[in-house]
């Protein structure tokens, strides 16, 4: 095996990243959020230049000027959200800009189809090159991206959380393809949070933490506990403040909630003061259920009860009036109006309440915001600063403030600590815990098992749209949850 790529990079967000990829290997890149993985990948992809260090590709030092450059050199990145052209067909998506030509520089469609089929054949995948890319499943979109990479004779393929939205069969198919690629001498950089997958298909692993390279090992030489410890830098158990509480009356009850194609027959309840966690792999339907409960999306069957009263097919406004709050997954697009100030954002769910009759004055908003900023220990400059100037953790506090201002009886939090630095993470956990203590019912969606196990009174595990398991705090372990989530019970 010869060296294919060697990278050393250093940028402010990345203090010391190093990684070496050899032809024909599948190499895992592990690290928590904020560890610097994405910056390293961007440097690899040519999106950012490294400020320090060297980037060696195929024995030569390279400076890429943009993603196109690196693609020319043979580096392909498959993002979590594949960027295909919906209106074009699959073959064209693969060959855009490089379509095979026939007479007089016309595009030779038959040849394009033929070559596409050939590549799909090599991958062992059956996708019709003629169909429009629109509507392809995520798994198939990935395959098209991989086909694109192969058609460009890619030497390095970076896969970012490829299995996040895949069903087990699709994961199997992907792994077969990965083995295939390895046989052809392609180096694969595999970013994942699913350690069992890493153990299954990768030969080596590089771990990063806090912007720096920590270690690289052969997968056989390192045990899972060591991996976790290197990633986290501390023992898992100490992080979560959990006080014992007595659950109160039922606040939320969901009965046989169903939406065709997404989730089926979901029933559970949350009592006052309880923290119920909804866990499962990405794509298992958790966020969709939360959105249906809160009235953002419709559901086809079943009912939602709040404090015993049935919630009619609702809207967010009705849900709010019933006493619910929803901290969404995507802070930037759904949780906050990024160009609004802190005051406007905090007040956004309380506009009616803050108005005197018809009029709403800015100082009412500011008083409210100042109040909550104090309670949640928000770090900011001025209340009128736009929230896009705040750090992720503080932004999340603003979202929480917005909902808490309404004194909800039930609050749904979706990935509450995603993209937040460690310090603020525990603050957010404390806020949630305090909430539960004060009698609020909490429904928490999370992909972080330690978080779930640390905070929840009960754990509901989703798999492919159905409730696979329910556990009490005392019974739950990471293994059990994972097993239920992946269907290996």
């Amino acid at each position, binding site marked *: 095996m010869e060296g294919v790529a060697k990278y050393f990079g250093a940028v402010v*967000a*990345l203090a010391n990243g190093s990684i070496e990829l050899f032809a024909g290997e599948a190499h895992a890149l592990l690290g*928590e*959020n*904020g560890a610097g*993985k994405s*910056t390293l990948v961007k440097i690899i992809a*040519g999106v*950012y230049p490294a400020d320090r260090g060297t980037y060696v590709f195929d024995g030569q030092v390279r400076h890429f*000027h*943009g*993603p196109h450059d690196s693609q020319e050199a043979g580096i392909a990145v498959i*993002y*979590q*959200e594949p*960027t295909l052209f919906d209106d074009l067909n699959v073959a064209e998506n693969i060959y855009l800009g490089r379509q095979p030509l026939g007479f007089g520089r016309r595009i030779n469609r038959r040849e394009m189809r033929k070559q596409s089929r050939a590549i799909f054949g090599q991958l062992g995948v059956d996708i019709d090159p003629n169909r429009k890319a629109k509507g392809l499943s995520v798994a198939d979109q990935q395959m098209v991206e991989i086909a694109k990479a192969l058609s460009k004779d890619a030497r390095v393929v970076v896969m*970012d959380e490829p299995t996040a939205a895949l069903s087990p069969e699709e994961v199997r198919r992907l792994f077969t393809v990965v083995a295939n690629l390895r046989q052809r001498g392609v180096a694969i950089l595999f970013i994942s*949070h699913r*350690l*069992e997958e890493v153990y299954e298909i990768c030969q080596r692993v590089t771990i990063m933490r806090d912007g720096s390279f920590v270690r690289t090992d052969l997968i056989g030489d390192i045990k*899972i506990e060591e991996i976790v410890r290197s990633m*986290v830098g501390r023992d898992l158990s100490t992080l979560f403040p959990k006080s014992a509480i007595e659950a109160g009356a039922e606040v939320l009850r969901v009965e046989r909630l169903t939406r065709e194609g997404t989730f089926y027959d979901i029933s559970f309840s949350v009592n006052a003061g309880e923290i119920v966690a909804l866990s499962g792999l*990405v794509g298992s339907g958790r966020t969709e259920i939360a959105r249906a409960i809160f009235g953002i999306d419709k559901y086809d069957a079943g009912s939602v009860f709040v404090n015993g009263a049935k919630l009619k097919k609702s*809207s967010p*406004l009705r849900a709010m009036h019933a006493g619910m709050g929803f901290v969404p997954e995507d*802070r930037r*697009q*759904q*949780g*906050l*109006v*990024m*160009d*609004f100030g802190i005051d*406007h954002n905090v*007040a*956004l*769910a309380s*506009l009616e309440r*803050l*108005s005197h009759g018809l*009029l*709403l*004055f800015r100082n009412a908003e500011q008083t409210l915001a100042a109040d909550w900023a104090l309670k949640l220990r928000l770090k900011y400059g001025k209340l*009128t600063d*736009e929230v*896009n*100037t705040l*750090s*992720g953790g503080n*932004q999340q506090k603003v979202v929480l403030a917005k909902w808490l201002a309404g004194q909800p009886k039930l609050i749904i939090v979706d990935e509450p600590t*995603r*993209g*937040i630095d460690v310090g603020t993470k525990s603050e957010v956990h404390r806020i949630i815990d305090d909430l539960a203590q004060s009698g609020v019912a909490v429904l928490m969606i999370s*992909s*972080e*098992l330690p978080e779930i196990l640390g905070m929840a009174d009960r754990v509901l595990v989703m798999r492919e749209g159905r409730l696979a398991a329910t556990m009490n705090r005392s019974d739950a372990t*990471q*293994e059990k949850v994972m*097993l239920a989530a992946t269907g290996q019970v």
Partner: protein
Amino acid sequence: MPHVAISSPLESNEETPAPLEKHSAPFGRHSLVRWESALVLFLIFDIFYGGITAPDFFSQNTIFFAGINFGLIAIMALPEMLIITTGEIDLSVAAMLGLSCASFGYLFEHHVEVFLAMILTLGVGALGGALNGFLVTRVGLPSIAVTIGTLTMFRGLAEVILGTNEITGFGGPWTDVGTNTIPGTPFAWAFGIFVVLALIYGVVLHFTSTGRSIFAIGLQEEAAFFSGIRVKRIKFNLYLLSGIVCSFVGLLYTYETNTARYDAGTGLELNVVAIVLFGGVSIFGGRGSLLGVVLSVIAVGIFDQILSIKNVSSQEQSIVFGILLLASVVLPNSARGYRAIRQRFRREASAGSSTLEANL
């Protein structure tokens, strides 16, 4: 083999600088203040220029006619501003003016009692606005396509109703709207109505929860929806309001000119949009102030009047409008574009980075 999944997939926020989103003003929040100051300067320039052009510029006559000529556009600009602030657009405004003008003329010709005819005409406006609102909010069509369609349709219907006829000789309480000023002032009625409406709109936009919601919708519709704001209802109502206001303007036009014709107001929609954008309202939505629009209306109205006095034809004036329109969007945007180009040379990858930032 133990199964552990640490953390969650999507890394956002932490490491990457906030991408230059299309809404972020190049000069920060103060860009609007700067824009309004520029408008004030323009206004002052106008006044001087006007004074130089004609010694009796500030006579009752000029002020009155400025109000007549510009009042209609001014009034229509108000609901248009709200719609644009939510990120949509209404290009059917002038066509509704024409349709209501034609409807009113038709009703009048058929001896319908004046007051009833007015109500019916406003009803036509409401229907038209509701159609726009329905197609945009319920069917989910892009507002530019919808309002181009309704624009064509309303004009067509006006043509059908009235043909090439011209109705004149309107009676009723409003007949002096085109000839007399508001008693005791030099202003035309149209201008007075504009001022009152502007005040109401200003208060609603800047001092009510609905107004906040409108800005939120324009800036980040999804987040607004998630916060319980009734996005669809607000947008629908804005279109409904626009329809009613424009049909009201149609009535005003009819009385001012004492004529009803099917092609009333042809082409004015572009003027309306131009005035709004020139007032500092962002075409993307979410930014702008009513004060800016008012300043724009007054400044451009006076400038328009100056051009008329200097015998610049209305066709030439349209060049001015075009330049104004361009200036009002190009200037803020080119600052941004220039910075982007500079960034591009420094970090040649920055143009492609926005997708990646979202994905990694």
